[in-house]
């Protein structure tokens, strides 16, 4: 890696103090020696349990935040961040399952894993594999409704999710108010079959009930992708033109695309809401390009998911003795609006809060509800 | 001007060339003959810089050299006219002529096509070819391409102070008789501009064109004869190491056909822009040879009979069975019609597949039991035919692509014979084969005819046609000009040529 990019990253750390970037940069510079120094994770300090996070990819701020949380927990045990294994499934459920099995095999089953199964049906085989190998796992986001930790046993410690519906509804209300309670709105959705995508669309629809004058003109999926979102948005401009008074996006990345597509049209005052609360998005909220985004505190989520698995593994608590509300619960979500964006950034982004990982359910937003 | 002294070339254990001494004088035409595998191509490749000699010296105008690449050889005035032509169809004539040397027309990195066109015109004039240099090459006739080929080589004149030495590798094998005459006339005119090395299997041509002839055998120069006194027989015996008996075409094995049973009846068949109301009958044991120039319709007849071309008028009936109609190669093969295409390597054999697989490729259904192959039976057949045709192959499991041309041809023939074809069509069956292999092919043709198979052959030379055929059909522009019955009349090449023109 050419040197100037390295010290560029350094300067980035200084200037933006954006923990995401810092951690990323930390990884990259550490990585220079990384791959071939095969240090088998030193046992003991973590009770002989190796820890891993299995997630989609390194290509988004969201997952980086998740990972940073996991690493924060590992470091809180006095280990180095590199002691947490990254199992990257690159959007392939097949690989995600294979990696987790391989990880367990490598550590003779003594593995504490946090995982997003990438596609909900994949959750069952994953947790079954972990149970059979005697490891411990907690999952986030994707799992089918018929799968519950208490049915699997102690090895499936907990499932953590974020109700997309309520926050997305709040965002929508904010959006509609900004639109003056009337006019057309379009929804740019994620990969349609993903649970978050479905919930966030539902949230919008719930809000619509109270706004008779707001019309949902169109719903187009842009697969969470910035480029596709930009193209879909500009096509929608052709179809609906000035009838579009507001845009409701299922995540930040797509919102970036929408903003740029509109910028190309010379439109800069269109109210747009997003989801995820990535630093870039928060900056946009502060600049007023984005009306609101929903922060789900992935850093905490990533940390606590791993913490639960590991603490159950070392026997710090016995999952089966916990109420269901502690086995399936929602993580916190904060609506970031122009008013509180600055304060929010100060507390969550510019300084990483240090969490007490033994306070397992402190930020829980209640037990997961199924419809 | 070009001289080889004790040149050796070794491939692994094989000594491809040993102590070759070879000389070309200014303005001379030197013939180079030898059976396949005698080392001709290796020698040419060394002359042309594609290979480098392992030992020995190469002199140009007395100066010692060693060509590192064809490009390097060209710089030194060595040009080559390839057997399988080296023009690229989708490029224009001028682009082909100057392919690899466009830089001469470069202005600030941009090619100046006007200049190139003019230059191309100049080159084409040398070979007396009047065509627009911008025409796409695949629109040209074979003969025209051959001339463009030559023009391309002649561009060397402008590029090197050395005198030219031009290798002609089998230049006539794809040309018809009159085109060959034209080419020879041209070569003789060009004597003052270049010396030629003329490589061919057709001894008569070599003798008539060259001044001196080198005979190669097993990588050595076994004879060097003055063409004016050379006799085909002697040269052949030198090449083969044995006397060629007068019965070269196995006349003695010739059987008369049985006029009563017609196995193929082509009635008034026309194929758009290829054939015009063709009528011909093929009888049991009969050998019909089709002669004519490229595109005179010989191939079109074979392909229509084989179901690859669909006539827009006329009717083809097989084996006196009106009910039987053939619309695809599949129909043809399953009804005992066999076809040996000209492009052996592309259409004839399956390289990377073994001898057995090649032999049964046209009759898999005979070895099909509930979709499974009876491979033992296959191998049995393969062994049987390898012995029967004495096919030289390490084993029946050897990659067919690595056999010599002659043996590949034998495999293809074996394929059709063994699948019980009753009607065979052979397109240039002896193309590029050496005398030994040729004779074997003739033998097989006789044998097939004796076995009651009717054959339509597109021969390599008039002599072949005269030697083999019961009936010779002369074609021109998709029409049948004339038919000769070799039993009743003595046919000479001259008769054929005059019939063609």
């Amino acid at each position, binding site marked *: 890696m050419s040197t100037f990019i390295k010290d560029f990253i350094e300067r980035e750390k200084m200037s933006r103090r954006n923990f995401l970037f810092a951690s*990323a940069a930390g*990884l*990259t510079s550490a*990585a220079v020696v*990384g*791959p*071939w*120094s*095969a*240090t088998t994770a030193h046992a003991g300090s973590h009770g002989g349990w190796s820890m891993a996070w299995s997630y989609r990819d390194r290509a988004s701020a969201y997952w980086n935040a998740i*990972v940073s949380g996991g690493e924060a927990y590992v470091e809180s045990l006095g280990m180095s961040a*590199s002691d947490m294994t*990254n199992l*990257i499934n690159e959007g*392939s*459920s*097949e*690989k995600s399952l*294979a*990696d987790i*099995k*391989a990880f367990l*095999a*490598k550590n003779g089953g003594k593995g504490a894993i946090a995982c997003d199964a990438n*596609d*909900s*049906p*994949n959750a*069952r*085989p994953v947790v*079954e594999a972990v149970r059979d190998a005697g490891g411990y796992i907690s999952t986030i986001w*994707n799992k*089918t409704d*018929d799968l519950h930790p208490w049915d699997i046993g102690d090895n499936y410690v907990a499932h953590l999710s974020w109700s997309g519906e309520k926050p997305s509804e709040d965002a929508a209300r904010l959006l509609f108010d900004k639109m003056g309670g009337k006019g057309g709105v379009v929804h740019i959705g994620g*990969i*349609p*079959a993903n*649970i978050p995508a*479905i919930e966030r669309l539902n949230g919008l629809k719930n809000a619509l009930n109270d706004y008779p004058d707001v019309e949902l003109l169109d719903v187009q999926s842009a697969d969470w992708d910035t480029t596709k979102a930009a193209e879909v948005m500009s096509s929608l401009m052709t179809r609906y033109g000035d009838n579009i008074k507001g845009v409701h996006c299922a995540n930040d990345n797509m919102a970036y695309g929408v903003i740029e597509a509109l910028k190309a049209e010379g439109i800069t005052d269109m109210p747009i809401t997003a989801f995820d609360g990535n630093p870039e998005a928060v900056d946009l909220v502060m600049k007023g390009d984005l009306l609101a985004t929903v922060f789900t505190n992935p850093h905490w989520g990533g940390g606590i998911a791993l913490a639960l698995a590991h603490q159950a593994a070392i026997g710090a608590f016995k999952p089966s003795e916990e109420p269901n509300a502690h086995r399936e619960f929602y993580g916190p979500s904060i609506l970031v609006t122009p008013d509180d964006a600055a304060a929010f950034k100060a507390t969550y982004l510019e300084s990483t809060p240090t969490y007490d990982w033994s306070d397992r359910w402190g930020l829980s937003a209640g037990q997961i509800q199924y419809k | 001007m070009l001289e080889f002294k004790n040149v050796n070339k070794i491939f692994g254990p094989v000594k491809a060339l040993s102590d070759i001494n070879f000389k070309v004088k200014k303005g001379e035409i030197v013939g180079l003959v030898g059976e396949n595998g005698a080392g001709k191509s290796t020698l040419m490749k060394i002359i042309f810089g594609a290979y480098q000699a392992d030992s020995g010296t190469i002199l140009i105008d007395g100066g010692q050299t060693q060509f590192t690449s064809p490009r390097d050889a060209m710089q030194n005035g060595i040009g080559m006219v390839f057997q399988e032509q080296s023009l690229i169809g989708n490029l224009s004539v001028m682009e082909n002529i100057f392919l690899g040397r466009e830089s001469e027309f470069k202005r600030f990195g941009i090619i100046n096509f006007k200049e190139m066109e003019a230059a191309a015109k100049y080159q084409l004039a040398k070979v007396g070819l009047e065509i627009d240099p911008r025409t796409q090459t695949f629109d040209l006739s074979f003969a025209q391409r051959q001339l463009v080929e030559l023009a391309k080589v002649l561009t060397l004149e402008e590029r090197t102070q050395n005198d030219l030495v031009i290798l002609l590798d089998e230049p006539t094998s794809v040309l018809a008789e009159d085109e060959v005459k034209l080419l020879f006339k041209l070569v003789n005119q060009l004597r003052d501009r270049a010396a030629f090395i003329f490589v061919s299997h057709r001894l008569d041509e070599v003798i008539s064109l060259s001044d001196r002839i080198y005979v190669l055998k097993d990588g050595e120069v076994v004879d060097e004869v003055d063409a004016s006194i050379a006799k085909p027989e002697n040269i052949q015996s030198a090449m083969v190491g044995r006397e060629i008996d007068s019965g070269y075409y196995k006349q003695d094995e010739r059987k008369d056909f049985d006029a009563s049973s017609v196995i193929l009846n082509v009635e008034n068949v026309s194929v758009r822009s290829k054939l015009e109301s063709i009528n011909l009958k093929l009888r049991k044991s009969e050998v019909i040879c089709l002669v004519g120039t490229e595109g005179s319709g010989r191939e079109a007849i074979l392909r229509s009979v084989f179901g690859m071309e669909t006539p827009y008028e006329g009717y083809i009936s097989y084996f006196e069975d009106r009910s039987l109609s053939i619309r*695809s*190669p*599949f129909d043809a093969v*399953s009804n005992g019609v066999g076809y040996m*295409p000209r492009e052996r390597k*592309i*259409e*004839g*054999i*399956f*390289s*990377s*597949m073994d001898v057995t697989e090649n032999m049964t*490729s*046209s009759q*898999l259904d005979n070895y*099909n039991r509930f*979709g*499974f*192959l009876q491979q033992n039976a296959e191998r049995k057949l393969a062994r049987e035919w390898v012995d029967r045709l004495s096919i030289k192959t390490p084993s029946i499991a050897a990659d067919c692509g690595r056999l010599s041309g002659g043996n590949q041809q034998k495999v293809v023939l074996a*394929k059709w014979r063994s699948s019980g074809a009753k009607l065979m069509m052979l397109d240039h069956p002896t193309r590029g084969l050496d005398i030994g292999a040729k004779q074997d092919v003739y033998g097989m043709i006789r044998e097939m005819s004796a076995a009651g198979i009717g054959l339509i052959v597109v021969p390599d030379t008039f002599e072949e046609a005269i030697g083999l055929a019961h009936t010779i059909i002369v074609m021109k522009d998709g029409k049948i000009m004339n038919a000769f019955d070799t039993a009743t009349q003595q046919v000479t090449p001259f008769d054929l040529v005059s019939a063609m023109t």
Partner: protein
Amino acid sequence: MRELLRSNYHWVTLFVLILLVGIVDPNFWNLSSLLILLGDIVPLFIMALGLTFAIYIGGIDLSAQSMANMITVIASLYLASLGLFIVPFCIIVGAVLGAVSGLVTTRFLVPSFISTLAIGGVCYSLAQWLSGNRALYMNAEKRDALFGWMLSSSGIVPNILFVGAFVFFVALIIERRTVLGRKLKAVGAAELAAAASGMKVTRVKVLAFALSGALAALAGVIFSIKLSGGAPSIANGFLLPAIVAVLVGGTPLTGGVGGVVNTLVGTAIVAVIRASMLYLEVAATHQQMVFGVILIVAIVFTIDRSKLTIVK
């Protein structure tokens, strides 16, 4: 000897890789974990087997992934009603759609690269439509009753390996012992010669794509059973690894060479390379790059250049 080595480069590559990873972390050599490693890659392997036939005749099948996606949805939807027959049903669906790509390629002369990609798009739309754009899960009892055995293991051998082995042998027999297999080889080696020998080239090619489709479908079924569910995008990430498996195994895109055995080895190579990320503890941000580099090295060692005159 040299010949022997050249024709077995892919084996050499595989064993060298296993050796290297094992040296760094001996746990890798643990037999049972190796077996698990193989068991997990079975669906991918079956899809790769299918692709092998398409590539064997010099084509390519880019619809395999979308096909599997759609099949996971179909399987999840109809397992309850069709029971065991879900398997043949899905295979037939796959074969038919595969044949369609084949027909488009042969009849209308659309390169298989495009036709299969397009048919893949159709599959994806069908999958989204059938699933109502939701992740589906199977009727658990049915799944356990009918296919539970597939997910358990006999001793240290995951039963799914037997499934993989069975499909492998079927494919091997098709390639080596059947008339169809021979015709596939012929068409791959020299299409024109095959035509001149009276083979129905078009039909053979269509069948090749049908086979590819059928096996992609089978991969989809097994995968959805494994996950006890399906979704229009759940098999994403199959396609490139499957293609890589075929190529690394030594079946070049020129056709006529290679075969299902090569794919077996190729898939194993891919599995090992993947696992090596973990065993060599490659940093997260390095993994993809390392994968690419190892891949290039592996290909350099695997493919037999002696047969290639021109490299396109």
